[in-house]
């Protein structure tokens, strides 16, 4: 290959990369500074709305395919009969397990119907459809969106307490940032004197950090932290958030080192309630 052609191709290649990087950086900057937030949100909503039926269709197809494969082979020999019996036993076991799963889902829905802490706030019950599409954020997706009255900023609770907050919505679903996400922080109150603190996420499956607790504050293991509901708070007051799991203090520390755990098991949620509540502007 002639040297000039090779050099011009190299130049073109480099130019392509520079253009792509420049466009990427421009898009990141616009999103980061909020200047293109409207159009990016619109594009994300449209993509989610377009993708939702595909996801449902794939789910619908995947299940019958499994059942079809299980029942596809049928024979008359003893071995085949034996295999059929084994398959029936397997199916009965699966039915029993499915029954258990249904019972557990029903229990979850019953608890959500009688939340002791929602205090008359209207709720939208939603099914969890996906866990964290990104490895770099602790989020869940729900099957209720703007058409059901869900809006960005609304708190989301499970049967035991706060789960997170809605960060993105589209017509048939929404994304919820879990309390365990590193970007999540919730103002809480605890103890007989109503001490204030800030619960911050540290990643899915990791303990929550409870910050701004003055050294010497009386704390108990298992103590429940509830939302403070202070002026301009992101959450209504008195929603249980987490349970204290450990605390310690060193002489020179400016605050107690307190760890807590969410009250719901966030990795196996099936149903949650979106509280139709928004903080005062």
């Amino acid at each position, binding site marked *: 290959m002639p040297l000039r052609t090779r050099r011009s191709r190299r130049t073109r290649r480099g130019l392509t990369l520079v253009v792509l990087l420049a*466009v990427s950086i421009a898009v990141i900057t616009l999103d980061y500074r909020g200047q293109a937030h409207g159009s990016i949100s619109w594009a994300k909503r449209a993509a989610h709305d377009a993708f939702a039926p595909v996801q449902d269709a794939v789910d619908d197809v995947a299940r019958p395919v499994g059942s079809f494969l299980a029942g596809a082979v049928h024979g008359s020999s003893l071995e085949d009969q034996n295999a059929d019996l084994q398959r029936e036993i397997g199916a009965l076991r699966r039915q029993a397990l499915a029954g258990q799963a249904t019972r557990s889902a029903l229990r979850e829905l019953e608890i959500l119907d009688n939340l002791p802490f929602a205090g008359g706030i209207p709720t939208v019950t939603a099914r969890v459809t996906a866990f964290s599409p990104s490895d770099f954020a602790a989020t869940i997706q729900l099957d209720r969106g703007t058409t059901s009255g869900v809006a960005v900023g609304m708190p989301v609770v499970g049967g035991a307490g706060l789960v997170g907050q809605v960060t993105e919505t589209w017509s048939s679903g929404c994304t919820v940032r879990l309390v365990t996400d590193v970007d999540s922080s919730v103002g809480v109150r605890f103890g007989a004197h109503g001490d204030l603190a800030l619960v911050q996420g540290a990643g899915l499956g990791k303990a929550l950090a409870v910050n701004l607790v003055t050294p010497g504050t009386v704390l108990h293991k298992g103590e429940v932290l509830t939302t403070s509901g202070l002026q301009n708070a992101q959450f209504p007051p008195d929603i249980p958030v987490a349970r204290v799991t450990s605390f310690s203090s060193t002489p020179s520390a400016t605050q107690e080192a307190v760890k807590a755990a969410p009250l719901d098991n966030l990795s196996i949620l099936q149903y949650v309630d979106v509280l139709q509540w928004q903080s005062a502007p």
Partner: protein
Amino acid sequence: MTVSDAARSTLVIVVVLVVQHTLLDTVRVGGAHPDAMVLLPIAAGYAAGPERGAVFGFVAGLVADLFLPTTYGLSALVGSLLGFGTGLATQGLVRSSWWLPPVVAAAATAAGLGGYAILGAVLGDPGMVRSYLAPALVVATPAAAVLALPVVRFVSWALPPRATVHGPAGGGTR
């Protein structure tokens, strides 16, 4: 890129996106899951060279970002670099070894996830490096090695080698 290349590439991106969000997202280990979307630019760079790898990675990244809660454009930036880098690093290699795509995919996925987390941290989210990077590397890197062969084959179908430009003496474009 021809119209048929563009159509096939669109199909590949959509199919991998559907597989990612309907199947792979449910395979969670320690909070992380396999990531086929990050494999797309790597496979494109491997199969079609640096330039087409960068363009494919950019488009796949923009599409992936529509479904992620992180900053929009981050995957496009990392995808462009991954496609270009993988193409550049592998263009002189003999492609007959079956183990080459899995090794390249695993190494490039680790680099891509690291770059993604560092860029996220630079943009004000240090938790991406501190809390999320380690589980993502542990799960997504071996998964990339497993998924590499089918994804590279699929992307190679979408981005076939370009026709020879310089005749018998000139060689191909790769």
